[in-house]
């Protein structure tokens, strides 16, 4: 009991699709994406405002930021899952060069099954409660991998086993409510993997789970990326998860990316005051105890519109005059791109030395 057989995680190389011309750009390229919710009688909400990033095969990109910063809306826009009405989407989302914004519903549905898949935060809302786990996974296999019913059930059982679900043949008959939270999240990952997607988007896949279960699932994702070359977009507010999983990180605040950097410089020398503030405000399990935490003042509701300055200005302790008169642009600074009039100094440099440069 407790321990069991271990097996290679052979999730299959995401196969090169025949009939495509050679393409060596990123798998996913998001350019100047903006999403505005327009509801009659209400002020427009610009949830995503000029967001750009790219993901290569085998790369894990993190999107972090607090509640309401636009992470999920970005993901839904990429997947073509935003509601059809009351939304204005601008910019460009290209999967292997193919523009997805404005693509037909049929085409998007086809791509969603075959090339890209998403795991949502709450597994209960994204699994169909009245359809057994087995049918949900085999449907994907039959539709997108042209398997017979028998082939599909064998493959489904093997997928469940590979994501660590015990007794998979019996589990196939279960309905989502019969599984624990951790098992449901694994089932969801299994069904997302069923089509061997080349792009996997995980929106807070472990937030609702206990840390021991979270560790299992993160390890599974790590293995998946390493062995099948899947491109992974990881959405989370947990900086610890980002530190262990992501190659590149984009920090969002109020709909815009405020800092982009590879994970080491991001954690080692954050340049944006919001990133720095986040890191200073969380207690670390491995840091000496008793060191005071330095919270960011105010709350995410205290923003000013980007049109009038930096949205973070009301909470920023690095604020200068320019911050409330005009919006900073995303500029390259060392290893990072930073949207800030007065960024934190790079390591080894004092703020004073930096001012002399200016």
């Amino acid at each position, binding site marked *: *009991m*407790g*321990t*069991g*057989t*271990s*097996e*290679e*995680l052979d999730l299959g190389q995401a196969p090169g699709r025949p009939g495509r011309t050679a393409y060596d750009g990123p798998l996913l390229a998001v350019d100047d994406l903006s999403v505005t919710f327009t509801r009659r009688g209400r002020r427009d909400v610009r949830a995503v405002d000029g967001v750009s990033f790219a993901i290569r095969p085998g790369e894990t990109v993190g999107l972090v930021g607090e*509640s309401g910063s636009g992470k999920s809306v970005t993901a839904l826009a990429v997947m073509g899952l935003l509601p059809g009405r009351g939304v204005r989407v601008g910019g460009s989302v290209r999967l292997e060069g193919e523009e997805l914004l404005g693509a037909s519903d049929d085409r998007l549905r086809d791509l969603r099954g075959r090339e890209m898949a998403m795991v949502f935060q709450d597994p209960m809302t994204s699994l169909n409660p009245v359809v057994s786990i087995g049918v949900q996974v085999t449907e994907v296999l039959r539709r997108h991998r042209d398997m017979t019913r028998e082939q599909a059930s064998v493959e489904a059982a093997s997928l469940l*086993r*590979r994501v*660590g*679900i*015990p*007794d998979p043949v019996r589990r196939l008959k279960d309905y989502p409510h019969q599984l*624990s939270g*951790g098992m449901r999240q694994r089932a969801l990952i299994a069904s997302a993997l069923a089509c061997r997607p080349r792009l996997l988007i995980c929106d807070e896949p472990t937030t609702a789970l*206990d*840390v*021991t*279960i*979270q*560790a*299992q*699932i993160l*390890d*599974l994702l*790590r*293995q998946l990326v390493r062995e099948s070359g899947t491109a992974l977009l990881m959405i989370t*507010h*947990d*900086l*610890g*998860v*980002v*530190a*262990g999983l992501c190659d590149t990180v984009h920090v969002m605040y109020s709909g815009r990316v405020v800092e982009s950097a590879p*994970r*080491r410089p991001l*954690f080692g020398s954050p340049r944006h005051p919001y990133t720095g*503030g*986040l*890191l200073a*405000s*969380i*207690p*670390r*399990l*491995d840091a000496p*105890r008793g060191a*005071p*935490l*330095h*919270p*960011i003042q105010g*709350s*995410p*509701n205290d923003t000013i519109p980007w049109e009038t300055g930096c949205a973070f200005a009301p*909470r920023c302790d690095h604020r200068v005059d320019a911050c409330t008169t005009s919006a900073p642009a995303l500029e390259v600074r060392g290893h990072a791109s930073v949207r800030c009039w007065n960024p934190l100094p790079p390591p080894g440099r004092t703020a004073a030395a930096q001012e002399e440069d200016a």
Partner: protein
Amino acid sequence: MSETVGEPTASAPAGAGPLLKVRGLKVHFPIVKGVFVDRVVGHVRAVDGVDLDVARGSTYGLVGESGCGKSTLGRAVLRLVEPTAGTVEFDGVDVASLKGEALRRERRRMQMVFQDPMSSLDPRQSVESVLLEPLAAHGVTPEGGKDAHVRRLLDVVGLPGSAAGRYPHEFSGGQRQRIGIARAIALNPDLVIADEPVSALDVSVQAQVVNLLEDLQEQLGLTYVVIAHDLAVVRHVSDTIGVMYLGMLVEEAPSDDLYATPRHPYTISLMSAIPIPDPDVEDRRERILLAGDLPSPANPPSGCRFHTRCPFRQETRCDDEVPALRTLAPGHRVACHWAEEVADGRITPAASAFDATAVPTET
């Protein structure tokens, strides 16, 4: 109205011994089934025999996976649920023996802060009436009048006086949690049980509330029990930490010792699984993965309750002998038969504990 409440002041009760003493505490919830007549078909053993002491003016942190019984333990201490067995002594008095007026008086000295600031506040109640309610309930007149009392409380938790006339939905999550804390300290309590006080808050705001709790403890001499699943937060605020698994304490130690030398296989695994926001640390760490999920507290495993998931499990004793909570170092108690062998490396985790795709067998 016979009693008064004045300035919140440092008032750590002077008596000797721990402020809170819990012995053999059990809370079992009946599982009821039946079409016409309800029939008890079993019990959820939410808390199943816990002993712990909380020293005056200190913070006791309680951690463990969801469903392990942390909240139920906290509620049983406050007698918001009736214990099935065991005793809770508060400042030398057995709480279970108290009735009527005496119970009400003791309750005034113990307050609770809840996880979800929104659902624990009545949306139709202004902040002022939220803060005056506990006074009315206990027939207490504030010294210097109600307005001054409300403004003082708001000031203590860092909210402007103008907040008094506003309603909970007008505040951010962090501000609402400040209101919840102000309500808890309105009666100048000695003990505050905070159940997941920051987990519903945005990361950037959590530290504000953690700091506020620490400041208040210093100013008012409060004793805290902080319940949370986030071990980093708990370690930051606590003097002593108790780790729960399926209704029982499996390890208890001074905060620093627990991190430096965790002794119970569950704590060791938990500690190794917590992500640390530092890429260098993350890349070097070896995670010990636990197989499967938390077993049902209605039907806990025999012997050591952790044996179905324990990466250190041995052929003997683990499956059939309940481990006692033994003192292995000063203030450090561990409930594992093999704690010494685990500590000195004579017993190492099974290989499957390092493989995410290892398949747990059904238990």
